[in-house]
């Protein structure tokens, strides 16, 4: 199934190659479960492109954050997107970082991507993977110590298990069949609600403990396609000075407050921040809360309608009770 979609993807790219400057997609990494981003600029490289549940990266950041692939006047850049990634693209268009006619969107419906860390934990001592194959909802891994079969559901990323937009919301071409989401929309924030049933003390304790693991590598910020300040990020600038380099809980919390509040009403829940965290901190959970808030207060979901302005970048004089 994945090889078929890969083949179709390569054919599609072959056809559009003359119209576009480059194609941003995925290619195999150092083993079958580690996929990496690739920018295809010449026809000979098209065969590198792949699509399968290991294609975890949200590539939309490569359209805006350096080293961004920016098309020349009148040309376009093609990008492969899953459902969640397509929302990032829409959000970037909404906020004026990108023009719709600069990009060609290759949409791929996605039934969930794999958390390689969850796979590695199942393999215990073995770390060398010879072969991996996904069939009928199960992953089969041949590794140095034998063969392991794992139901796919058990190794999906958290973001995928709670995804309600698995099909691209915007695209120029769609490859593969429409898929249905893992959860109902009304269950989207049930984790947030459950957490809010705990006492304030428990919540404070949870974050103090969880965030104390943070090494402030800023990978979460760097991976976020909507965290676009880069060198101007106030977490690193010394003027104004917000965060210090001291390894204290205060500085960590402040950094996460900055990321979360700057993403309020903008985050599309693509889960990249959480996926890249080397300390396995549920970074997206903080943003889920803010999204639950902006949905309730402003009936707004980020990255769905390119004509809407994110709620905190605008106002409504007639709003009452606010």
């Amino acid at each position, binding site marked *: 199934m994945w090889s078929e979609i890969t083949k179709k993807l390569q054919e599609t790219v072959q056809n559009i190659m003359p119209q576009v400057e480059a194609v941003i997609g995925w290619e195999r990494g150092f083993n079958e479960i580690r996929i990496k981003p690739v920018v295809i600029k010449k026809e000979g490289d098209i065969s590198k492109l792949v699509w399968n549940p290991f294609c975890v990266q949200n590539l939309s950041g490569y359209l805006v954050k350096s080293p961004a692939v920016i098309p020349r006047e009148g040309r376009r850049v093609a990008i492969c997107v899953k459902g969640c990634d397509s929302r990032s693209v829409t959000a970037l268009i909404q906020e004026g970082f990108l023009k719709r006619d600069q990009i060609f969107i290759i949409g791929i419906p996605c039934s969930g991507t794999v958390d390689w860390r969850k796979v590695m934990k199942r393999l215990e001592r073995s770390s060398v993977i010879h072969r991996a194959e996904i069939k009928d909802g199960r992953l089969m891994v041949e590794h140095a110590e034998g063969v392991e079969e794992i139901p796919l559901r058990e190794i999906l990323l958290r973001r995928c298990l709670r995804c309600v937009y698995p099909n691209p919301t915007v695209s120029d071409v769609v490859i593969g069949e429409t898929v249905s989401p893992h959860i109902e929309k009304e269950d989207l924030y049930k984790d*947030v609600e459950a*957490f*809010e049933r705990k006492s*304030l*003390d*428990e*919540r*404070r*304790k*949870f*974050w*103090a403990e969880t965030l*104390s693991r943070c090494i402030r590598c800023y990978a979460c910020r760097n991976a976020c396609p909507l965290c676009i300040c880069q060198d101007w990020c106030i977490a690193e600038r010394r003027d104004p000075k*917000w965060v210090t380099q*001291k*390894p*204290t*809980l*205060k500085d*960590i*919390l*402040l950094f996460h*407050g*900055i990321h*979360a*509040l700057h993403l*309020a*009403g903008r985050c599309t829940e693509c889960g990249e921040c959480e996926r890249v965290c080397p300390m396995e901190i549920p970074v997206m959970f*903080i943003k889920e*809360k*803010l999204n639950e*808030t*902006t949905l309730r*207060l*402003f009936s707004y979901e980020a990255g769905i309608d390119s004509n809407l302005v994110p*709620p*905190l970048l*605008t*106002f*409504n*004089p007639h*709003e009452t009770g*606010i």
Partner: protein
Amino acid sequence: MEEREKTKNNTEMRILGFLCNWCSYGGADTAGVSRLKQPTDLRIIRIPCTGRMDPLFAFKALISGADGVLVSGCHPKDCHYSVGNLYARRRFEVLKDFLPFLGIESDRFHYTWVSASEGQRWQEVVTEFSRRIHELGRNPGFDMNTNLVNSEAR
């Protein structure tokens, strides 16, 4: 004098007030000039407009252990820059809803509108907010001095 005594007995709370230069700052002044009695826990920071109020100002204060943060600006439609407070109120609502998720009482943050002539109203706002914070008690915040790498080093 009687007021002074009272504050001495109850420990003073650390409350930050961010007041818009064009209205609430004047309102606080009006209250002072009219010699209206006010609690003394509030430390005022003047801002050019509530639109200048980054929710992170309040966030940083509260995680650092401030007991309360009060923001006050011009009434909606009276903002000196027309719409600063309309942007601001959305941000404040979001912040208020966010704080408890991290374990901070949302009542520690409050925003309101007071014009330069409303000295009386200012007195009520400060008195009520200070009372509320006294009721909540000290903000345990987060243990800010924890140096996570080497707690002896500092």
